């Protein structure tokens, strides 16, 4: 855990302590369990987003994909009678396909990620709405899928399974990003695509892979969201979720220019965002202020972080002036 992550963790604990003092019910196991459930749901898509952001890209279609996968998945299992493992596999395939298309448009046809995924945002939202003719997709009364429900929305000793899923995915992705060859390549591509290419890295593939990971994780989180809400109104489900994911990544120390950020950071960012939403509800702050609180905290967090880094850098500059630079001494 680097210093940035530690600072974020400290902030989370501090906010938590303040809220707990104001309203001790904040610490009730059920509240922590409920909030962590949402951390699990949003965290899955935020990690996907993080991979794209590291390449210097952005994925704006997350919310729409969550809506599209949601209606399709619920419709498949509740109406069409497709066995859920099959439906889940199909959703995963859809997520991978969407990621692949985005990745290829960005790398092969050199389109800007913002543009590609903005179009995706519009197209998938429209597709989801068209598919159900704007009707809500949901389960009928008494329609149950015990295994699926236990897996996605169940809890074990109060721990929501979405959190278990997030823990597994985060661990896996931590290894991939921070320890594997692919992760090293991702950072290299994000920092300087051209230099990475000149080092023999197939940068196109690396970028496509990042979008594919994002697509797959988004599809998984979409299934979890669908089983949590059990009802998908295609016009509004998932609206702005991409912004939550991006905000979590930014809070977690990612730069939108690429090449920076850690898995721990984005998970902590998600936790902080959900903690804020929780505190608005628990402290009786008017919910109309919810957005403002979130925006204010992100702004303050990024501001403090940026100023702190600049301060440290300046201090390092002053301190270093006394020691000398090793120079190329001739032999």
């Amino acid at each position, binding site marked *: 855990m680097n210093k940035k992550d530690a600072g974020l963790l400290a902030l989370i604990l501090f906010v938590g302590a303040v809220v707990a003092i104001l309203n001790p019910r904040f610490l009730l196991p059920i509240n922590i369990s409920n909030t962590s459930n*949402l951390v699990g749901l949003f965290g899955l898509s935020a990690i996907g987003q993080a991979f794209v952001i590291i390449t210097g890209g952005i994925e704006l279609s997350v919310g729409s994909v969550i809506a599209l996968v949601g209606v399709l998945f619920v419709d498949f299992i509740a109406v069409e009678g497709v066995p859920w493992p099959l439906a889940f596999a199909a959703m995963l395939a859809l997520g991978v396909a969407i990621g692949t298309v985005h990745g290829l448009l960005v790398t092969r046809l050199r389109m800007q990620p913002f543009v590609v995924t903005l179009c995706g945002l519009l197209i998938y939202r429209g597709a989801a709405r068209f598919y159900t003719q704007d009707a*809500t997709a949901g389960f009928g*009364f008494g329609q149950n899928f015990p295994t699926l429900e236990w897996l996605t929305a169940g809890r074990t000793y109060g721990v929501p399974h979405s959190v278990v899923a997030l823990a597994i995915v985060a661990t896996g992705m931590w290894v991939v990003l921070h320890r594997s060859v692919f992760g090293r390549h991702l950072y290299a591509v994000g920092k300087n695509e051209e230099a990475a290419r000149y080092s023999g890295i197939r940068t196109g593939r690396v970028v496509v892979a990042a979008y594919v990971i994002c697509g797959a994780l988004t599809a998984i989180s979409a299934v979890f969201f669908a089983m949590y809400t059990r*009802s998908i*109104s295609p016009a509004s489900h998932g609206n702005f979720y991409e912004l939550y994911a991006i905000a979590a990544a930014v809070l977690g120390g990612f730069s939108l220019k690429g090449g920076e950020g850690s898995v721990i950071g984005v998970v902590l960012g998600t936790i902080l965002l959900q903690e804020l939403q*929780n505190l608005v*509800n628990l402290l009786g702050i008017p*919910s109309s202020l919810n957005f403002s609180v979130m925006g204010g905290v992100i702004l303050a967090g990024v501001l403090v972080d940026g100023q702190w880094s600049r301060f440290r850098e300046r201090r390092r500059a002053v301190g270093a002036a006394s020691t000398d630079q090793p120079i190329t001494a001739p032999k």
Partner: protein
Amino acid sequence: SAADKPTLAFVVNGASDFWKAAEAGMRKAQAELPGYALELKYPEQSSVAIQQRLMDDLVTAGVKGIMVSAVDPKTSTDGLNKIAAQTALFTTDSDAPQTNRIAYIGSSNVDAGKQAAEIAKKAMPNGGKCIGFVGLLGADNAKERIQGMKDGLAGSKISLVDVRGDDIDQTRAKKNVEDALVASPDVTCMVGFYSYNTPRIYEALRDAGKLGKITVVGFDDDPITLGGVKEGTIAGTVVQQPFEWAYRGFKLMAAYVGGDKSGIPANHLIIVPTKIIAKGDVDAYAAALKAMAGK
């Protein structure tokens, strides 16, 4: 202090003026229930997930009773049951009969749709062609109102040929009316299914100089709608009574939480009927609204 009193919450389905009357009802109930803290909660977005988490948080905060206008009651059975297991749960606005809710207090959107059909039939005895406007085509309340209206129009010479959605974007709501005037010159009647649709119809018709030439049927009691009805350019509007829902709802909850279950009918339904407001009813209705708001 407020924190020591038992809390009752009224959770709505999204931010809308419609619920301002419910706030007034809450204030009236509060005056009569000094022993309780009453709250009306808006989810920050009209979405099942966000409403669900709002209720989870309220339960955590220890509310004694929740009355909810569920965003999507049909498919939220489990979520609502989870809440019902932890606190006294009532529904309002749109019912969730399969859940363990204690009672429903509200009106019937299908009946409201039928009343709209009545207005149309009365205004257009020779028949006509209607086009409707709504925020979310897929939402239950929209579907029920549209269905009710179609049922009510069955057998008459009036038809509802199309309903256009606008995603609760007022700019598109108004443009949809303008486009409909262009695309279907033979339309003789327009229906605004959501509270803001009728004022947008009114304004677009006014801008186009068609006010009074096209029959307008409205829902709810936006001031512009009421003004149009009074002026005679809107044939009539169907109003619900959220004030009553909130007022009677809070009283009912307080009684129930206090151990008095006599107010719960056997069928668990307390229907507050919708009303047709025609030209002659506006003044009285507006006065009643004012009185309810306590202003």
